[in-house]
């Protein structure tokens, strides 16, 4: 591994707006009366609910169990009673099944497993089973079950922890690395042990020098390396991060393990640490609540199932009506139309976008300026693909490698004609995948 991180091609430099919340220490959100826990918080097989209405549950008790390998269980955020099994607004603007827990106020632990204090000598398989049992997913946004990534079918020689946090506005990972540096490093060491590796590298964008310093103080003790990264969106995209740190290119349609890498988010590393050393399942996370319209932006440790409205109340409410409410960052986050959506394991940010930022752009014809081509970190031709999509030529879009697109939004960000490039690519990918499924059925 080289000492100097490589420059990946393309990328953009949006105004990071992190100052709103970067200096705000993480606060534990107060216990609520009621939590509405969305059942399927991960990518993979849907869960099987094991509680019924009226059941009394402890904090950390199993609510729903995994139904396959790519699936992780769900645990109760607090002690109390299951009061409803209904549908609630989900993050994709559609209703999703959820479990409502009415808290009894005691917040009493009933964790389904014991701490593994002597993890240095524990079996890697047992540690991996714990990661799976604790319901840990990729907490950077994707929500992919962590234990699946820890079960590579190809030889792996590098473990990377993603602390880039390249999305503007978000500071949750920043605060976490700064305030819980040792826990992050311990989590990294546990992950390395599971993979049979001696070391791990934590990649952090250079705009968080205090976090790098904090990590460096404890990293050497566990032979973990901390690497500063160039500030360039999308530095935290998995493929770009691997390239920056190792110079390896993940093949299109491939996985990090194809180039001998495993990437985990720093927040997931903390969850791993807590699951192994403390015996706690994944029921809380640090989330940035930010945006110019908010009175008091900051970072909070929320239980899963906390409604967005409660999070916004903690941030002091709003001064002016925002134009958009997002889960995640402004480049890849999802717009919401309800304040009743609840915090999930992968909710890295709750962001309000002011009206001034969101003009309702009319899209104009492509003037072929090529800014999107220069900005594309995957080196495809956004302008041409977008025209192919507009003409319904999904076959052509496929030829032009639209499936390589990571949907980072850099092209749309720069486009002077305000073309909905990212939207076109999502459409093209969906159409191509649908056509392939049809083909397979035949």
């Amino acid at each position, binding site marked *: 591994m080289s000492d100097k991180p490589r420059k990946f091609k393309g990328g953009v430099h949006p105004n990071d707006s992190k100052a709103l919340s970067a200096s705000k220490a993480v606060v534990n959100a107060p216990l609520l009366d009621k939590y509405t826990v969305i059942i399927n918080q991960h990518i993979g097989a849907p869960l099987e609910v094991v509680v019924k209405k009226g059941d009394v549950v402890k904090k950390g008790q199993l609510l729903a169990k995994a139904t396959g390998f790519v699936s992780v269980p769900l645990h109760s955020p607090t002690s109390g009673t299951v009061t409803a099994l209904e549908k609630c607004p989900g993050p994709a603007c559609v209703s999703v099944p959820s479990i409502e827990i009415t808290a009894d106020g005691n917040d009493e632990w009933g964790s389904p497993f014991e701490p593994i204090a002597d993890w240095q000598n524990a079996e890697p398989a047992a540690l991996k089973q714990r990661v799976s049992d604790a319901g840990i997913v990729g907490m950077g946004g994707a929500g992919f079950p962590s234990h699946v990534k820890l079960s590579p079918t190809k030889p792996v020689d590098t473990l990377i922890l993603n602390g880039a946090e390249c999305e503007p506005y978000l500071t949750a990972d920043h605060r976490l690395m700064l305030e819980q540096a040792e826990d992050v490093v311990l989590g990294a060491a546990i992950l390395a042990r599971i993979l049979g590796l001696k070391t791990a590298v934590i990649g952090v964008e250079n705009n968080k020098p205090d976090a790098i310093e904090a990590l460096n103080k404890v990293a050497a003790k566990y032979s973990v390396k901390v690497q500063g990264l160039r500030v360039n969106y999308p530095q935290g995209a998995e493929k770009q991060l691997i390239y920056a740190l190792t110079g390896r290119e993940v093949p*299109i349609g491939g996985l990090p393990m194809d180039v001998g890498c495993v990437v985990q988010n720093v927040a997931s590393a903390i969850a791993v640490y807590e699951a192994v050393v403390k015996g706690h399942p994944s029921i809380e996370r640090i989330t940035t609540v930010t945006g110019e319209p908010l009175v008091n932006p900051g970072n909070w440790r929320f239980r899963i199932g906390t409604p967005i409205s409660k999070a916004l109340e903690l941030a002091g409410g709003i001064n002016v009506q925002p134009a958009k409410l997002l889960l995640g960052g402004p480049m*890849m986050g999802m717009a919401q139309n309800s304040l009743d959506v609840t915090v999930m394991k992968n909710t890295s940010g709750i962001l309000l976008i002011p009206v001034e930022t969101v003009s309702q752009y009319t899209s104009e014809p492509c003037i072929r*300026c090529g800014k999107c081509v220069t900005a594309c970190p995957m080196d495809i031709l956004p302008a041409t693909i977008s025209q192919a999509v507009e003409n319904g030529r999904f076959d052509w879009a496929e030829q032009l490698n639209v499936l390589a697109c990571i949907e980072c939004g850099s092209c749309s960000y*720069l486009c002077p004609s305000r073309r909905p490039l990212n939207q076109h690519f999502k459409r093209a990918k969906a159409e191509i995948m649908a056509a392939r499924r049809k083909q397979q059925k035949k």
Partner: protein
Amino acid sequence: MTEVETPAIQLPDATKLVISNSPHIRGGETISNIMVHVLVALAPAVAAAVWFFGLHAVRVMALCTIGSMLIEEIWNKCAKRPSSWKDGSAALTGLLLAMNLSAGAPWWICILGSIIAICLGKQLFGGLGYNPFNPALVARVALLIGFPSLMTSWVTPQAGKWLACDALTGATPLGASGAAVASLNDLLIGNVGGCLGETSAIALLIGGIYLLIHKLIKWQVPAAFIGTVAIITGITHHFCPEMTPPALYHVLAGGLMIGAFFMATDIVTSPMTANGALIFGFGCGIITSVIRIWGGYPEGVSFSILFMNALTPLIDRYTIGKPFGYIRIKKEAAQ
């Protein structure tokens, strides 16, 4: 009643939230921004033209610029399309057309040129973004073929004299075959006969650097274009000096500077890829040199750019790079 209990904290009105695809923030660039930048980049050349050709230059530039914008609006009205003069592209086309005309061009040439540029060069193809050829050059070449004597009689520059320069007709630096008729110094500053925008190399260079700094043009185009012309004419001059003037003379004289920095780099009609831009500039350079040295016309910049414009889609198609992570797929497939 719960609403009364917490009146202090105001929450967003969920019914007013906008739902849209990511990204939710946008960079500041717009089409009119880009056009304004190019217009600003042309300012030194405009000033030089006014200095050397006086109010006649102002007349030609005003006629072409305002004419183009008006014609664009008339077209939009007739074609029932939304008004588009505000994006600045019509003004830019008009100004670039003016830079391709002589200070002595009659008013109807200016207007006819604007009509050809806007209607034939741009709108017939579907408007901004869809035109395969540089509209200003389409107009220039059409006028050059239609009115050869009018388009090749130049006004002698008279620096700083506002109203002079009426009937004086001077030689253009590339007109007399083989012989250099102007000093390099004059070419650099612009004290030579020619189109408004063909004269002052230094003013055009300043504008070009401005565009490069703002990343509005690809450096590959002017570098490859000017470099190729310099090399070909340099070699030819070295072996048969009587055939053509030296390389530096070729670089500074005629429309090469404005062609390389402002016409060939037109974003709509030049390739999008970096390698494509190199090929494009290289092709422009070869054709320009061939026309200048062996061709029937003294100047070949416009023809070369228009020819390469036609090849742009092809160049773009064959210079698509391999995406990130592509090589490995191939290697794996081979295994």
